């Protein structure tokens, strides 16, 4: 069968034929490969490819899987045309950068105002969680388009703290 994948946001076509735990597959326009794959523990896969042994761990994500092997992490989604367009947009949507709270916390100080321009690495907002104050920095230079939180406010995980364009 043939699958449309998105690997770390980049579209790729996977052609795969399975016979028990043996696979014949071709990723994009690369050569066809032969591999053997066994799920040895739930979400843990042992893959033999050209005599090399790989152990990969899979976690479910939103509409995707996170695959970890040899210390590397890959986001892989199986896409259908409709979803593809949306996701590819997001994948290529590098024109804006949201600073997001990765866990619940309290806003201690807001260091920038909407409209200001910031340098990469410049402090944007100070959040306290788990008894530690963390200064969230801008990952890239740009203009602060939004700071939807106020000092003293408690935020939940996933809350957008600031947006840089």
């Amino acid at each position, binding site marked *: 069968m043939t699958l449309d994948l998105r690997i770390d946001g980049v579209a790729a076509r996977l052609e795969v034929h399975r016979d028990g735990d043996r696979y014949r597959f071709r990723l994009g326009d690369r050569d066809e490969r032969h591999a053997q794959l066994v799920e040895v523990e739930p979400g*843990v896969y042992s893959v033999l*490819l050209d005599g090399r042994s790989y152990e*990969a761990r899979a976690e479910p994500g939103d509409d995707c899987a996170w695959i970890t092997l040899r210390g590397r992490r890959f986001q892989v989604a199986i896409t259908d045309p409709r979803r593809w367009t949306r996701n590819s947009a997001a994948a290529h949507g590098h024109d804006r950068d949201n600073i997001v709270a990765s866990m619940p916390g309290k806003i201690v100080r807001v260091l920038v105002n909407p409209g200001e321009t910031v340098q990469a690495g410049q402090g944007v907002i100070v959040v306290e969680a788990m008894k530690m104050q963390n200064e969230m920095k801008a990952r890239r230079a740009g203009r602060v388009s939004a700071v939807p939180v106020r000092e003293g406010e408690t935020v939940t995980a996933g809350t957008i703290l600031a947006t840089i364009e």
Partner: protein
Amino acid sequence: MFRKVLIANRGEIAVRIIRTLREMGIASVAVYSDADRASLHVRMADEAAHVGPSPSSESYLRIERIIDAARAHGAEAIHPGYGFLSENAEFAAACAAAGLVFIGPSADAIGKMGSKTAARDLAMAAGVPVVPGMHHGARDADEAREFARGCGYPVLLKAVAGGGGKGMRRVDGDADLAAAFRDAASEAERAFGDAAVYVEKLIERPRHIEIQLLGDRHGHVIHLGERECSMQRRHQKIMEECPSPLVAAHPEMRRAMGEAAVRIARAAGYYNAGTIEFLVDARRNFFFLEVNTRLQVEHPVTELVTGLDLVRLQLEIAAGEPLPLRQEDVELRGAAIECRVYAEDPDNHFFPSPGRIAHLDRPAGPGVRLDSGVYPGCTVPLEYDPLLAKLAVWAGSRAEAAARMIRALDEYHVVGIKTNLGFFRQLLEDDQFRRAELHTGLVDEFLSRRPVPSDDAELQAVAALVAQAFLPVRTSIDKNRAGRNAWAAWRVAGRDDLLQ
């Protein structure tokens, strides 16, 4: 020896203490908050007492509740571990008042040494060099600025009651001082209930090297050599070594720093385990930094190299036994390294990453020691320090120990939450670390030069193959199988819901 001991702590250190208690045939009593009912230390202890809601201020920091629990369970002594009440003189005194043995130094010694300013006076009196700094908390930003100008920038703002880097800020000039003072004070207030902050001259690119002390209640004090703790992020140790590569190359330093540490301990009438921290500058001068009047997080590296069990020794000392060894009996063999494994996201400002551990593979084999407080399916609570485990290795040499640590990290997998395991993996391969050119700023420097992994078509192909096996796919051929695999993944989640 005691028949029953209560551990006034949680997580990996509670588990580590329970292990030695069991080996000594002493019954263990765990304490737990609402968030910790299913935690490993409760599962492993012989007895367990609930001490309140999840916030530590309402449970693990409540002196009266801890002491009531010890009384109710008939414990004769209390081990405070590190953090929480471990350096609280009031708690030590309360234990004594309740007829319980506090496994640590006297309340008086904690009082003398717990305050950084008082401890510095003590060190100076003992003829040990100290870093120039204020002798008391600064009234306000102005007084702090005044002193800073006097000794010259850069300076450090430090919490008087502080420890673990909390309430600490570097200031490079007048301009930053006010804001830094405000942040440090508020952080100190939150962390220690005391906003007092003082100023200290900053030594550039120093090493952090500390001496492990051991003293019995009969006036006998020895040291167990040093630990190199220069690998820090935001003033928090993340990786420690024994011996210090610098001291190993200059053994006379061990003798000088060890004797200085013992002098300070004697001057304070100190007993049980303790640690004297020093800063060492580029010319190998050492300056007294502070005292930790408790077992250190990083004690395993000293245990691996000396062959001693520090918790066992703490218990014997607390029971009034004399030290079983003299200074000349202390022998260092080989090299040990420890990594502090945190639930945090190195790719997102090292932000804490609490949550449920869906899958866990632990390293083992030759020379690997894991002190862990978690298990597969457990939830890492939001309320506490996100230390999951301490991974320590021993080998004949530092290079072999580093290689062994990399091997162990490769065997270590935590699925469901983010950890700093991969970060350590990179750090251990850093040339400057390998050359042992260490200083407390090395980790931050490394972060700025941290290598970006290159694309790997082979791994990408394997990832694609695994993903199609793992994800449910809408095709006739693979429906059942793929569906089943995805199910498996969801069953893991579903299963863990039962643990709530």
